[in-house]
């Protein structure tokens, strides 16, 4: 990584302080004031709003030789998602995805 060590430490410190502030926010306020309903409704979707968008360009990125996305990664991700939705269990999803990745990588 060409990012300097001081930048990495800056990211670590700011992320640590910011994350603590988010975690402490409502617990820290005495009396446990209620968060407005509309805000809760938005916050509820943050993981599913951020993570798929973060991963999509990486999964769909074309390979240098074929100009198409990596078939091993695409199939592993598809299996991970399907097993996750079906079994409602992150461990099984992760194992199934890793097994698919290994199988497709070895076969091709």
């Amino acid at each position, binding site marked *: 990584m060409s990012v300097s060590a001081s930048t990495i430490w800056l990211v670590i410190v700011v*992320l640590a302080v910011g994350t603590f502030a*988010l975690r*402490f926010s409502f617990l*820290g306020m005495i009396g446990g004031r209620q968060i407005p309903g509309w805000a809760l409704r938005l916050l509820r979707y943050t*993981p*599913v*709003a*951020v993570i798929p968008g973060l991963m999509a360009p990486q999964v769909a990125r074309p390979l240098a030789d074929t100009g198409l996305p990596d078939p091993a990664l695409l199939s592993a991700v598809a299996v991970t998602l399907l097993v996750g939705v079906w079994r409602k269990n992150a461990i099984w999803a992760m194992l199934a995805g890793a097994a698919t990745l290994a199988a497709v990588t070895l076969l091709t």
Partner: protein
Amino acid sequence: MTTDAHAITPRQSFWQGLRHGGPFVLIVGPFGVVFGVVATDAGLSLAQTMGFTIAVIAGAAQLTAVQLMTEHAPTVIVLVTALAVNLRMAMYSASLAPHIGAAPLWQRALIAYLMVDQAYATSILRYEQQPGLSLRAKVAYYFGVVSLICPVWYLGTLVGAMAGNQIPAGVPIGAAVPIAFIALIGPMLRTLAHVAAAMVSVVLALALSGLPYNLGLLVAALAAMATGALVETWQQRDAR
């Protein structure tokens, strides 16, 4: 569990928490290893990798930050995006506050520091099922839940960071990140609103991936959050 909740001592409550949180080490351990390997692979030192894991304790946000730094995103974008991934923690905090908001400040600070997804989900379920638990029993339960999860997270990262350099070049470590992330997302897609939010996120992130500074992801995430909230509102209106 229909025992009289008032009779449960903090000590018993702690051990119950430990037992209920225990199985999650099966997720947290491997996820820690993935972060350790990916961070080392990206060029972070052992101290930086462990610094991340101990100071932040939020795997998804940590992987997001490392991923964006590898893509040379500007530092402000790295921070804003990684903190956006952690916005849900404020929701957890709001949801726990009515139960344990009256605990001493140092306990609330420690609870906040150790607030990981599994600790929140396990504890809030317990508090809702056993409303009669004393404040001390509730706090003890929470500490029981995290007392295996968090050390295993540190240890997993350490193992990954130390093993990272010895993994042969042919092994597709890069693919571990999408698999680890998407494994977490699958079980969350339990309502139409969640599915709609995830789809908007994917489509807009792909369509806007040409925007500078990874701004496409921020736009996609905000639009996806709004989509989830709107679909939820519509469904509630239709249900009436």
